């Protein structure tokens, strides 16, 4: 009897001891996350509800006025549309290219090692450096692209200098940078598909195309979802090249939301507007998070 009581006591104190250890282990992380994720998120919401303080007029509570101001701001509307277009163009194209690259890199082609590294190389380059490389492609007159086009007698185009083409030029850089990265995930998934499936399909007389479409693509679905979430996040995050290529111009045609947040906060010193935009971005990213948690089989991918 006493022995059991002692054992339970021991068990309880042991449990308590472990829980305390656990909390101690988590403390440094929670402190850092609070300082650089939780507190700033809440502070952003808070800031977005106050007016911009000047020396004469201290900032005061204005409710949702900053949001109203934002939705009336034609630049914000343009920027939001740009970002939606940027996402709608770069996400499907880079995923499609990544898939094709992975299929190639996984098949028996000559110089496969070279092909794989060539596809993957942009991933390890800083976006800033990549933008420098691409600048020479786009420069009107003597840029590589113009020189190639002039071989076919096409006129010189100022790719980055006109609103009609600038965003597309920026998208091309993003697609180039992302495809190789996403390819890696497809390549990994392809290598887990058993060889028997292909053999079985061949015996059944299925063509390679049918095999790819009916067997491979469905098996790649979880990877596609994982890549999609990453691509969505990147369509908000990947803006470094704007600083070199266009600075958001000409006339805002390549300005994306994070760039506009940066500009509002650090060039126009309009923190409330930047905060309101940040809240909108957080809501969108939250929706993406919810999508991921719901759609993805929890065992498969997290990032």
């Amino acid at each position: 009897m006493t022995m059991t009581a002692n054992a339970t006591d021991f068990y309880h104190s042991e449990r308590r001891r472990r829980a305390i250890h656990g909390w101690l282990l988590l403390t440094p992380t929670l402190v850092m996350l609070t300082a650089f994720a939780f507190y700033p998120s809440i502070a952003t919401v808070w800031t977005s509800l106050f007016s911009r303080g000047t020396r004469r007029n201290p900032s005061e509570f204005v409710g949702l006025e900053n949001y109203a101001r934002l939705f009336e701001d034609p630049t914000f509307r343009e920027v939001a549309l740009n970002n939606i277009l940027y996402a709608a163009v770069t996400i499907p194209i880079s995923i499609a290219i990544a898939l094709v690259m992975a299929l190639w890199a996984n098949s028996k082609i000559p110089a496969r090692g070279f092909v794989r590294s060539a596809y993957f190389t942009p991933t390890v380059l800083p976006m800033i450096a990549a933008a420098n490389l691409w600048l020479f492609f786009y420069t009107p007159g003597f840029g590589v692209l113009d020189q190639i086009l002039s071989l076919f007698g096409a006129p010189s185009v100022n790719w980055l200098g006109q609103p009609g083409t600038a965003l597309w030029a920026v998208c091309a850089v993003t697609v180039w940078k992302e495809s190789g990265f996403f390819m890696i995930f497809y390549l990994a998934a392809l290598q887990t598909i058993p060889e028997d499936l292909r053999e079985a399909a061949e015996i059944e007389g299925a063509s390679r195309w049918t095999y790819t479409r009916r067997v491979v693509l469905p098996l790649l679905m979880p990877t596609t979802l994982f890549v999609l979430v990453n691509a969505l996040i990147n369509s908000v995050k990947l803006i470094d090249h704007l600083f070199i290529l266009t600075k958001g111009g000409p006339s805002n045609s390549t300005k994306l939301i994070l760039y506009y947040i940066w500009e509002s906060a650090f060039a126009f010193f309009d923190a409330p507007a930047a905060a309101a935009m940040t809240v909108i971005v957080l809501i969108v990213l939250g929706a993406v998070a919810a999508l991921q948690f719901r759609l993805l089989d929890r065992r498969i991918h997290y990032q």
Partner: protein
Amino acid sequence: MSALARHAEAALALLVAMVWISPLMFAGWAAFHAPTDAINFNLAAPWTLENFRTAWDGAPWLRYFLNTFLLVTSVLAGQFFLCTLAGFAFAQVEIPGKDVIFVLVLLQLFILPEVLIVENYAVAAQLGLLDSILGIGAPYMASAFGIFLMRQTFKSVPKELDEAARVEGCSTLGVLWRVYVPAARSTYLAYALVSIATHWNNFLWPLIVTNSDTTRPLTVGLSIFAAPENGVDISVISAATIMVIAPLLILFLVFQRQFVQAFLRAGIK
């Protein structure tokens, strides 16, 4: 017919590969040629190191390299420390309310430090971290991604090893250090490669936090050096760009297999 199609496909794959590395190839070639020759695509032009000399003298690159090195190592050290402790707690220690906290931590996967630049700047200012290497690295140290990765790895460590070590008289931290950390060696390597590549290349947050040459990392230094206002020519910018990416590129070519594996592991675990 099928053989022909196969050859055409291989040729296309190769062509795309050429297109994909062509920007790098062109910059590599332009960096070693005079700007007039680079612009005119003069393939017969003589090679020169002049551009590297000009670029090197145009900015405190050595300092930038040092700053990037310090940044990458301090971020990595911070991440290893925090993610090891937290990953271990989430994987192997029974704590009431653990699941709720874990979901909170995972939220950071979506609340990116990049998005919170405005308020993170305010926090960094309050902590006196502006214009310091620690200020650039701090928001990334408690990485939800790293914590998740370590948790997954620690979960796969056999319970028997843990219990055996405890029977031998190891404390909780002793078990972590003697059993779990050695078992996770390959995860650490993978995570290190991904982290180094990420922070070597990071730009926006370092741009915001730094405002002097003694803290600027390479990416920010390069963007200032190559700014159109500075009127530096195409060959010199190429040389500077090649200089900045060379260490990482060489690291990538040497550790290619590990790099790819690292990114895979990082994503799929």
